[in-house]
């Protein structure tokens, strides 16, 4: 399966039909996708092929747009009408939403065909996709390793060439970290750039939706369709959306004299040495193209994970209160009274990590503790944001690693939550500051992909994509793909290899 741009070209030139490609996606999902456990639910074949045929006809009439008929997958956190929305939780197993997320609606209206809902960490809480009620997702580069999280199913599906592109959400790194660990391109937009309407909320002041694709070009195409103000989300920003795909070509010129900051705290001894080398090499590549590198300080960076843990947990404890077993979702058997209905429905319906964060969040908001934790974390958040914005006035963007290591082994960190939270050490700062950031493949270590993160000032998605695209014109890391599964395996129904 090709990426978005190539798929669109095939459709445009009549070399493939959306019907064929959609069917191919479903077949791959049922075979290789099942082994990786990428999907929680798949589109009903006849219904989705009907949509595909309709888009083929639209293209034949000349009424298509670049994305018409291109298949994609949505993270199972986006409310969809056709497919259940489980958030990878027993709490919402089989839940059918009467509303459609704005992101889903916009991509559908742009002509894309949703083939399935991808696996994730339960309620987007996790960095390894081991916290799913529907089981862990395997990294396509090494099935013993995690794909990252929480958008692990989306990243793995794109990396394994199961689907041209997928959506994700990023609260503390949940798009960028799995993108890095799976070797795909993932972008977290500025807070307020993409509507959160119809996205099951984890931490409302941090959550943002964004694309995961094979390249900056693909990410630009998707983001362009996803972004923009939405009357249903009061936190969206009113400014118009830039034409990201059209802006990409200017990347080469933009690099001339572009000031790129390398945060010292992102590149110190805590970073895996090989990952550090790859990031330095990538920076030098951009320098050779005219960029000006300089080391910068992010002195409050060390506080980011702690502040994030407190704020995200606080908001999640309130956001997840609605899952009470009263109106929808999981309800325990035969509760004796109201209190037991709440207690057991939530105890049985939520997984361990969700409960850990709900309890943490309830604690940090409680009388007597709120000042020491929640209010303190808000102050730290302000410091971090101010420092980022200050640094981004002296530079045009920041460059560093997305994650301290390449993909780790399944089970390696799951028993050690604090160590797990540190996987997000380079990503959470952007969420706290509301900044856009993109992760692009920047090399390999031990056969596993490594991601480079570019961070820009608010609403600089266009610039980030330009630089990422230019980097991808100069490198081929993003073109590498994991080994294909051995041919002739059951369910592998002769799809066209990439």
């Amino acid at each position, binding site marked *: 399966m090709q990426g978005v741009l190539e798929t669109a070209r095939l459709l445009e030139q009549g070399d493939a039909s959306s019907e064929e490609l959609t069917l191919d996606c479903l077949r791959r999902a049922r075979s290789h996708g099942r082994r990786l456990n990428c999907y929680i639910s798949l589109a009903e074949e006849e219904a989705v092929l009907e949509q595909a045929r309709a888009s083929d006809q639209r293209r034949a009439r000349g009424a298509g747009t670049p994305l018409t008929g291109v298949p994609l997958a949505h993270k199972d956190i*986006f*409310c969809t009408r056709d497919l259940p*929305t489980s*958030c990878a939780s027993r709490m*919402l197993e089989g*839940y059918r*939403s*009467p*509303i459609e*997320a704005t992101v889903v609606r916009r991509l559908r209206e742009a002509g894309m065909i949703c083939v399935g809902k991808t696996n994730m960490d339960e309620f987007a809480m996790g960095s390894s996709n081991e916290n799913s009620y529907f089981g862990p997702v395997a990294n396509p580069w090494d099935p013993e390793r995690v794909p990252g999280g929480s958008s692990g199913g989306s990243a793995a599906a794109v990396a394994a060439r199961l689907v041209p592109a997928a959506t994700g959400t990023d609260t503390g790194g949940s798009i960028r970290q799995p993108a890095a660990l799976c070797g795909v391109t993932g972008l977290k937009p500025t807070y307020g750039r993409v509507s*959160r*309407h*119809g*996205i*099951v*909320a984890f*931490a*409302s*002041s941090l959550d943002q939706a964004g694309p995961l694709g094979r390249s900056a070009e693909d990410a630009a195409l998707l983001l362009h369709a996803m972004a923009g103000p939405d*009357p*249903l*989300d*009061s*936190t969206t920003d009113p400014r118009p959306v830039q034409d990201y795909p059209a802006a990409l070509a200017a990347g080469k010129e933009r690099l001339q004299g572009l000031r790129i900051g390398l945060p010292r705290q992102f590149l110190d001894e805590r970073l895996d040495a090989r990952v550090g080398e790859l990031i330095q090499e990538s920076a030098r590549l951009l320098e050779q193209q005219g960029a000006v590198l300089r080391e910068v300080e992010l002195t409050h960076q060390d506080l980011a994970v702690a502040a994030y843990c407190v704020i995200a947990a*606080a*908001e999640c*404890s*309130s956001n*997840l*209160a*609605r*899952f*009470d077993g*009263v*109106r*929808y979702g999981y309800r325990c058997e035969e509760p004796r009274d*109201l209190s037991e209905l*709440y207690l057991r429905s939530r105890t049985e319906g939520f997984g361990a990590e969700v409960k850990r964060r709900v309890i943490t969040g*309830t604690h940090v*908001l*409680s*009388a007597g503790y*709120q000042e020491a934790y*929640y209010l303190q974390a808000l102050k730290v958040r302000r410091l971090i944001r101010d420092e980022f914005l200050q640094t981004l006035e002296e530079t045009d963007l920041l460059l560093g690693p997305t994650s301290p290591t390449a993909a780790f082994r399944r089970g390696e960190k799951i028993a050690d939550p604090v160590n797990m939270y540190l996987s997000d050490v380079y990503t959470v700062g952007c969420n706290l500051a509301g900044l856009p950031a993109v992760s692009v493949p920047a090399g390999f270590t031990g056969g596993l992909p490594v991601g480079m993160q570019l961070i820009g000032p608010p609403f600089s998605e266009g610039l980030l994509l330009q630089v990422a695209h230019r980097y991808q014109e100069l490198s081929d890391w993003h073109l590498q793909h994991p080994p294909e599964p051995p041919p002739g395996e059951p369910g592998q129904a002769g799809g066209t290899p990439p």
Partner: protein
Amino acid sequence: MTWEIVIGLEIHVQLATRSKLFSGAAVGAGAEPNSQACPVDLGLPGVLPVLNLEAVRMAVMLGLAVGGRIAHRSIFARKNYFYPDLPKGYQISQYEQPIIQGGSLEFELPEGGTQRLRLLRIHMEEDAGKSVHEGLGDCSGVDLNRAGTPLLEVVSQPELRSPAAAAAFLQKLHTLVRGLGISHASMEQGGFRCDANLSVRRRGDEHLGVRSETKNLNSFRFVERALEYEAMRHIEALEAGGRLQQETRLYDSARHETRPMRGKEEAEDYRYFPDPDLPPLEISPEFIEKVRRTLPELPEAHAARLEQQYQLDAASAAALIRKQGAADYFEETVQAAGGHARQCLYWMRGELYAALKRGRLDLQSSPVSPAHLGGLVRRIADQSISGKLAKEIFSKMWESREDPDKIIQGRSLERLSDPGKLREIIAEVLRENPRQLKQYQDGKSKLLTWFTGRVLAKTKGRADPNLAGKLLQQALRAQDGNAEP
């Protein structure tokens, strides 16, 4: 009496917006359970609140009316607790930065004089749904039609000193919000709800005593009675050497007593924090000015103007303001009558109110319009009809909804004031009653009234009594002359 009662009120005023505070679902009572609840009100996964600006406008109106400070920036906060009628597990309210701070409202004390009660704050919040326990067997139900309905919570300073004063203040606020048109304020339907905090202390003591909060007060009378009960309970307990505990109690109007609320073993920790789904509410000075220009005349100013413009006594003016629509009805009636304000008021409060009461109608649905009542008063004032006849015409107006002039002409009820005609009738009366005429002529001058009555009877009340009397005297004098040539 060595005890001083200290009362503070928290009043929830339901706003008369068409849709809910954070969703597009319709507001209104009486619909099928859960038929006026959209995904936002149901707290489904993925939904987000969007603020209803109409509710903001109404909050600003009340803020201006009580002279409060309108916050240029206020914050919506989540009040977290679990209850089946609270779909999201939190209520969106305002906590640290409410939309209105301060302000005050002057009202008349029952014992005479006035008090200006200071307000602490007014904040916006959404209402919860309702739990339903009747008619579902051993199950309980949840009706979320009310969930998300916009409320203003008005919090007073604890400066009321008697249950009667508390009720009088509530009346005043009730009149105000209805006059502003921001609430129907129906107490029976929960559109105007009051929680009352009460404590007692020895007179002269500076520290407040332990307070109790009483809920479920859905009429002015219940507020007063519940607070009387609470005051007695507090005083008796303290005089018996007991101690009070801070608690929330429910008023039972059937038994006229308050009881501790069940299941309230410990103080709730609501874990308030700013709602990240809603940006701070920013209100520009221009917006406030725009609202100020649309502000209707405020009740106090309105009453003062009525008093002055129509030369009414203060009590009458206040009564007109208190009764919904009465001031407007009155002013329109006076305009139609071309003045005669006191006559207008007399007819409104007499015939009209009695008829409305008999028909169980309110002023808005009165079959007699202000224009018609004014027309009637105009005819009385220019002496076209007598007061007695006017009552008859009023009944016809009530039944037929017709213009009084049309009724008067149609039934030739117009006052007989043609001297020629009257003289003929007088002559007739004198001819028919020779005995009485003789007695009059013999000095029984009281009979003049009796003759006048006969004239009026003969004209079925249409004769102008003054003119008739004058002409009758003339005629009697002339008869005298005839008798003694």
